[in-house]
């Protein structure tokens, strides 16, 4: 909502400075978005007169002018290139030091082609004020030299743009803003009274309403014999100053009241209305052309204004082209109505049409103003366009807008945290237009002004469906009891300023607070630290990716496809963060950063639910080092990443089994699934499938993992038993088994561990061999077994016995033989 200071002063008498006004607007919830003071930047520019103009001795296109720009510049020589510079012309003069916004230069005195030049004569374009380029600006012949140009041109007015929150329809007019500022103590609201214009004839156009839910009350009158032409300069300036284009006096008058009082009006050319009656009714699929030239098809939910020929206007939103006032209009019919905010909002959204009028109806207009506004508009039309007014016609009736609200004075303190004396609370509310109905020591009952549609409305609830009926009813009763009071508390606080409320620390629940994260939530923080400490860098990717990309990662159900994506490649909820990580690898690798590791802890979406995964990728090669050649990233790194996360979660590594059945986006022969028990999948890992990489346009090797953090069982919280710190040295023995190539190493390790749970403390793999020294189709697997006696040292015989048990167990489990 834009307005100028001079416009504000029409409604507000104040000594406050611009800075004070802006600070107060901010305080009371009318947030200042910008303050534009065009004049301030042009302050140095002066009106002037060319005393004499002679051709420049050294240049064909230049003239040497003598200029009178008032005291201090009464006879200045200026070299000027404009063809229209001539003796006696009134011009705009830029003295040395003036900054010329249109040229982005600061004027300096100097010589131009050998002739002194002590300033510049300017065009409006150079001042940033217009587009004309045919030479310097020509001011009226009687212009007195030496005036400040912005003062002369009326540019000294400041334009303030404020954001109006949706509850404050009353502040969508300059008068409403003035009222708020006055109530906050920044001056006095000037009285405003509309002078009644007596009608001298019966209006040839009447109203009818058949859709009262949308339009409870409408007024109108005909003014005949008007001359519609350009508005007077004051009105055009006023509209232009807030960015509106003047059209014609009749239209400009409606716009003026729209912004001055927040009161939308519409003017029909009375002679285009067929049948002498306008009816507010439901649409019925008709199409009509609006004032801005669009064809609009209305539904039964939309409220329209129709004459005998059909739909002529979309009520409260936009008039029709066929019946609008034009330069040729001689008889005008003025519409002043109340429309239901919700229906206007829904129609506006449904039809994709909005206007300054619909913006105000949606947010609520002054319920009592229509009569006075119509009178004021009539007066202005007659003043500016002449003519004669008919009697007022109406349909429907003024709705019962009167409401009361009660404030218990303590509540300002108990809800708002500010102790405000009762008298002050009442006085502030009265300045806003509330009327005291009844006051006792503890509370006051107030009448709500007709323009405050946001205060003391009947509560509309949308209570949870699963609430017990008695709980819901009690809560609803509570709202009915206190909502209006909260509205009043808000008004008092707003005017007092929230900075006045003393800040109070929250009462501590306990001096040392409990954990903010549940154990399940803390795991995400832990996984993040673990993976970053392992050299991976965290990314955050969009939750939506392209449908095609998602297909490569196993899932792109239509139920997870956005109905209104912002771009066609951001339309599918991602099945796994790997989609984004793979894209990130490409993004970095094409920039020359192909050897990196990334991870993301974020949501993966499936038809059934969303879950948070810890996913990561490593790409390219490991770094070379003297004596250590680089090698392509290996799936072991990805497996180690996943296992380390699981270990940090407290999963016993011995309880994890690996199966070779990872999903399709992994290399089928170089990927695996980490499981705990037969059903619970903890993670996937492996090389990515070459076709996935190809589709993504990646030419470096990539390994990846996905840990299903939420599916990893929490370890049972039990006290650790004391460790067995044996006094005896462990014995380490190497075994090499030859077994069929397709038997997993994990089964060898598992069998060794199971061979003697007491003695076998550890088993580690040190060798895998295939080649001429073992039979075709087999391989040799070398493991080092650590045997830890606890009672006494092992005798040779005991050592022999346990070795045999180990070999037997492995042989039984895998068919292996000792090499």
């Amino acid at each position, binding site marked *: 909502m834009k307005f100028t200071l001079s416009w504000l002063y029409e409604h507000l008498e104040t000594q406050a400075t611009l800075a004070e006004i802006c600070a107060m607007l*901010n*305080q*009371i919830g009318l947030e200042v978005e910008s303050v534009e003071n065009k004049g301030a930047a042009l302050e140095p520019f002066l009106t002037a007169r060319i005393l004499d103009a002679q051709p420049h001795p050294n240049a064909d296109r230049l003239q040497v002018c003598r200029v009178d720009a008032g005291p201090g510049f009464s006879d200045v020589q200026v070299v000027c290139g404009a063809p229209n510079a001539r003796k006696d012309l009134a011009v705009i003069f830029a003295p040395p030091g003036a900054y010329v916004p249109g040229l982005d230069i600061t004027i300096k005195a100097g010589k131009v082609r050998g002739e002194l030049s002590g300033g510049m004569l300017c065009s409006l374009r150079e001042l940033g004020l217009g587009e004309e380029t045919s030479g310097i600006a020509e001011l009226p012949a009687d212009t007195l030299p030496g005036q400040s140009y912005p003062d002369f041109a009326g540019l000294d007015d400041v334009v303030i743009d404020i954001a109006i*929150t*949706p509850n404050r329809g009353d502040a969508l007019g300059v008068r409403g803003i003035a009222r708020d500022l006055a109530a906050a103590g920044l001056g006095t609201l000037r009285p405003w009274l509309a002078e009644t214009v007596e009608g001298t004839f019966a209006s040839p156009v009447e109203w009818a309403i058949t859709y009262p839910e949308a339009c409870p009350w409408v007024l109108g009158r005909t003014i005949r014999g008007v001359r519609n032409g350009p508005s007077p300069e004051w009105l055009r300036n006023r509209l232009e100053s807030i960015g509106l284009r003047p059209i014609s006096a009749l239209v400009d008058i409606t716009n003026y009241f729209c912004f001055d009082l927040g009161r939308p009006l519409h003017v029909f050319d009375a002679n285009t209305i067929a049948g002498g009656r306008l009816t507010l009714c439901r649409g019925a699929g008709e199409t009509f052309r609006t004032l801005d030239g669009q064809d609009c098809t209305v539904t039964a939910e939309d409220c329209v204004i129709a004459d005998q020929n059909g739909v002529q206007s979309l009520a409260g939103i936009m008039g029709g082209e066929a019946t609008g006032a034009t330069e040729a209009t001689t008889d005008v019919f003025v519409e002043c109505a109340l429309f239901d*905010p*919700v229906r206007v*909002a829904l129609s506006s959204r449904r039809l994709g049409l909005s206007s300054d009028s619909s913006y105000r109806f949606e947010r609520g207009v002054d319920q009592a103003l229509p009569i006075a506004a119509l009178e004021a508009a009539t007066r202005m039309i007659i003043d500016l366009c002449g003519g004669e007014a008919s009697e007022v016609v109406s349909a429907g009736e003024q709705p019962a807008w009167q409401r009361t609200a009660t404030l218990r004075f303590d509540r300002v303190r*108990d*809800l*708002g*945290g*500010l102790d405000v004396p009762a008298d002050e609370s009442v006085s502030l509310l009265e300045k806003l237009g509330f009327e005291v109905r009844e006051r006792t020591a503890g509370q006051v009952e107030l009448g709500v002004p007709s323009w405050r549609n946001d205060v003391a409305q009947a509560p509309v*609830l*949308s*209570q*949870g469906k699963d*609430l017990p009926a008695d*709980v819901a009813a009690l*809560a609803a*009763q509570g709202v009915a009891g206190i*909502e209006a009071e*909260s*509205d009043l508390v808000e008004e008092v*606080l*707003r005017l007092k300023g*929230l900075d006045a*409320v003393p*800040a*109070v620390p*929250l009462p*501590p629940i306990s001096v040392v*607070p*409990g954990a903010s*994260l*549940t154990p399940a939530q803390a795991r995400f923080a832990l996984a993040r*630290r673990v993976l*970053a*400490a392992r050299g991976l*860098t*965290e990314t955050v990717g*969009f*939750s939506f990716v392209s449908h095609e990309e998602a297909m490569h990662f196993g899932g792109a159900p239509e*139920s997870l496809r*956005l109905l*209104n994506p912002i771009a066609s490649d951001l339309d599918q*909820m991602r099945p796994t963060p790997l989609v*984004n*990580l793979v894209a990130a690898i490409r993004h*970095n690798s094409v*920039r020359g950063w192909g050897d*990196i590791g*990334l*991870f993301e802890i974020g*949501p993966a979406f499936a038809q059934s639910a*969303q879950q948070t995964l810890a996913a990561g990728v490593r790409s390219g090669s490991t*770094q070379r*080092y*003297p004596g*250590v050649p680089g090698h392509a990233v290996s799936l072991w790194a990805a497996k180690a990443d996943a296992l380390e996360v699981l270990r940090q979660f407290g999963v016993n590594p011995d309880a994890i089994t690996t199966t070779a059945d990872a999903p399709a986006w992994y290399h089928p022969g170089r990927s695996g699934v980490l499981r705990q028990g037969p059903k619970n999948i903890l993670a996937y890992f492996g090389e990515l499938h070459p076709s996935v990489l190809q589709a993504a346009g990646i030419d470096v090797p990539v390994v990846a993992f996905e840990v299903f953090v939420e599916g990893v069982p929490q370890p049972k919280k039990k006290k650790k038993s004391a460790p067995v710190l044996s006094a005896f040295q462990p014995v380490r023995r190497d075994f090499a088994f030859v077994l069929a190539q397709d038997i997993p190493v994990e089964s060898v390790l598992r069998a060794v561990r199971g061979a003697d749970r007491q003695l076998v403390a550890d088993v580690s793999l040190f060798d895998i061999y295939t080649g001429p020294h073992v039979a075709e189709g087999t391989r040799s697997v070398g493991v080092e077994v650590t045997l830890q006696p606890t009672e006494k040292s092992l005798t040779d015989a005991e050592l022999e016995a346990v070795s045999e048990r180990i070999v037997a167990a492995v042989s039984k489990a895998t068919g292996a033989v000792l090499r």
Partner: protein
Amino acid sequence: MSDDLETLRQDVLSELAGATDLRAWDAVRVGTLGKSGRLTGLLKALGKMQPDERKARGVALNRLRDELTQAVEARGKELEAAALQARLIAEKLDVTVPPPAEAAGYIHPISRTIEEMTAIFGVMGFQVAEGPDIETDWHNFSALNTPDHHPARTDHDTFYLPPAPGLDVTRVLRTQTSGVQIRTMLGQKPPIRIIAPGRTYRADHDATHSPMFHQCEGLVVGQGITLGHLKGCLIEFLRAFFGKPSLPVRFRSSYFPFTEPSLEVDIGWSRKTGEIGAGEDWLEVLGAGMVHARVLANCGLDPRVWQGFAFGMGVERLAMLKNGIPDLRSFYESDIRWLRHYGADPLAPALLHEGV
């Protein structure tokens, strides 16, 4: 000393001198003092001598044995020292060679910022609550006093999803994490103190808007909670977060459908230098208010008994301000150079006692 002993002495000493490595030295030692060494042989021969001869010879031999033992040991030490010296010289490495690089990983500034928020609000007794990114329009809007036609809804450019199979409920990508507040109030009895950090979505994409971003909302519900507490809580937070104990904080009236009174919070900064806490200008950082009576009632709480406050802030916005990050879009571009530049060290998590 008899001649043979003197000869032996001279021989051994010169042999020792001639031994230049430990192996040669050991041969001299064994050949002299070993089991069948020359001196050992002479000592063994003592037993066969006459007692009177034996005494004098014994004294001489013992003296010679002590002297040679010492000489052998001394020479041994010398050679050991020389060998060590030689080894140390041979083992010399170019210590300017850098060690094998260990890849450094970093935590994303969004995660880091949420961690800092959690740490600070945690001290004030808040717990972290979470909810789904795909919400029903009831949780995202209606329960928050934002009915279908509400002008505030058009300010949210909402992403819509088709109804879930078998369920006739409008689904949206949450435009705010307020749905978490609703779920919390429905699921737990007050007193409530939660923050809800998480992903949020709005159909807007330009230099200062991203279709996905993060919010951290907070909710306090109890008895006797006033706007004074709201101010105390948020001032504490902002000063701790920016590490400026006297950061100027300003509160302005505003409007949100789900709070009343509603307000916006500004912090002092310098538009010119971007420095937080300095200068004449104000910068909006968050929105807040007392929870609207209707919102409490929609969740089954009687607003005559319970009241409280809620707030919401943009995680990226605060991260940008605190760390001087200029561009919103860079948060999601996964450019390794940017991530390494602005990322946080995993070994320095946000711990209040170490300073956030």
